């Protein structure tokens, strides 16, 4: 096996060290923390770059941003949403349509840090007991959310949404919002591996659909180098998305990870010892 390996000097990058094995992870954590810091800098330091929270905000007093799923809930609940929020939601949507919908999950959402930690601890502690929750449940939840909004006339998901509850808690006063994060964390740690983001959260499901045709994609471009070590599947929050790209060569499938469920977290790029993966864009798909 090792004889067939491409010699190190022919690889694009040399053997990975601790940093390069976590490059995207570190970039991503920086981005997540920066997002939090930007929202917190206003109330705590008086630096008003962003006012508001993840539900809706105002950047530098000019650009308004609104979470499109929350705006949709409001529409379904029967409110004629004011134009500012509509423009904000369109702006946010356009961004994620380009960079990948679930970039929200892995680069912005603060809950992701808790669920990533749970997943990491799980593998560290070799916890394997799983309650099987089908990954499609989140789409059913996503379908139920607008339905229930319409039925109850309220923005119903915002009663439970741990993302906005927690982030709002940090920015405006915590209350019990830490408890929500703890619940999600414990759920992921002890009940189901990647259970919250991977099977239940309708926000992730929504952004996944939003970015189903997004431009930026992970590419298993050097899949012929894959040694089937399985590291990428282990680390990926949505391992099913890697399968067609990595193993589909014979079936003529693109090496691009095309599923909207991929969060563009880049962990596979990080961990693959053979440097199979890299960030790329959908247009490379046109080439045979």
């Amino acid at each position: 096996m090792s004889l067939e390996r491409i010699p190190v000097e022919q690889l694009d990058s040399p053997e990975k060290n601790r940093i390069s094995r976590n490059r995207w992870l570190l970039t991503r954590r920086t981005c997540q923390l920066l997002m939090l810091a930007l929202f917190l800098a206003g109330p705590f330091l008086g630096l008003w770059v962003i006012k508001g929270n993840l539900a809706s905000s105002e950047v530098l007093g000019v650009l308004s941003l609104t979470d499109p799923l929350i705006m949709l809930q409001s529409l379904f609940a029967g409110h004629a949403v004011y134009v500012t929020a509509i423009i904000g939601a369109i702006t946010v949507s356009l961004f994620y349509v380009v960079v990948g919908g679930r970039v929200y999950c892995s680069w912005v959402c603060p809950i992701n840090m808790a669920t990533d930690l749970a997943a990491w601890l799980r593998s560290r502690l070799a916890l394997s007991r799983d309650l099987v929750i089908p990954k499609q449940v989140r789409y059913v939840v996503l379908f139920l959310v607008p339905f229930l909004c319409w039925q109850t006339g309220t923005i119903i998901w915002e009663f439970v949404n741990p993302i906005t509850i927690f982030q709002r808690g940090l920015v405006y006063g915590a209350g019990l919002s830490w408890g929500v994060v703890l619940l999600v964390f414990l759920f992921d740690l002890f009940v189901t591996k990647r259970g919250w983001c991977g099977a239940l959260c309708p926000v992730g499901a929504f952004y996944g659909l939003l970015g189903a045709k997004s431009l930026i994609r992970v590419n298993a471009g050097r899949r012929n180098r894959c040694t089937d070590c399985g590291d990428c599947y282990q680390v990926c929050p949505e391992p099913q998305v890697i399968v067609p790209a990595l193993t589909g060569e014979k079936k003529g499938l693109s090496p691009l990870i095309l599923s909207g469920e991929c969060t563009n977290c880049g962990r596979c790029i990080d961990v693959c010892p053979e440097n199979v993966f890299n960030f790329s864009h959908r247009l490379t798909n046109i080439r045979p």
Partner: protein
Amino acid sequence: MAFLKSRRKFIGRILQYLGSLGVFGFLIAGHAQREKTGLPAIVIRPPGALSEKDFLSACVRCGLCVRNCPFDTLKLAELGEPVTTGTPYFVARRIPCEMCTDIPCLEACPTGALSHALLDINKADMGLAVFTGVDTCYAFTGIGQCRACYLACPVKDRAITMEAHRRGGRDVFMPTVHTDYCTGCGKCEHDCITDQASIKVLPRHLVKQDAGLVV
């Protein structure tokens, strides 16, 4: 046989879906029900807020109204408070609404939960002041000559007047709220000098237009 097996598998799968959805749905429904319970009487919504039912369909809980209030009046409800989590409110006795003429809280609201149809803060309808001080109010009991509430009112002489009454052989004055003009800003409640305010702002729906001492 294979058919039976796959059917069993299929049914198992369906049960799995229903089970996880059921548990999840149950938790959410329970929580949502709790969240929808009505507002406590001391909780006042910002100026221009739609009726409570419509407000809950409109407000995305962003807090931009809170941020734009120059007086720190508004607050977003924290999880665990008896107000729908994340929605803005104020408690008049703590910090009342100063009735800014440019209504910056409303101006900032991206969704219209604070209705942009409200152009004049004097037409705001946050709540209604109610005189509760028959036994406590300095002016009405005749203990003193207080008229702090009247002086505090931004719409004084229209929303609130001190009306003379004959009580126990003496001339006393009762702070009297006029429903057509009271905006519910809470300045009177805030400035009232008695331990417990002798005049209180209540959500309008709790006070009938022609109720009790209101003229």
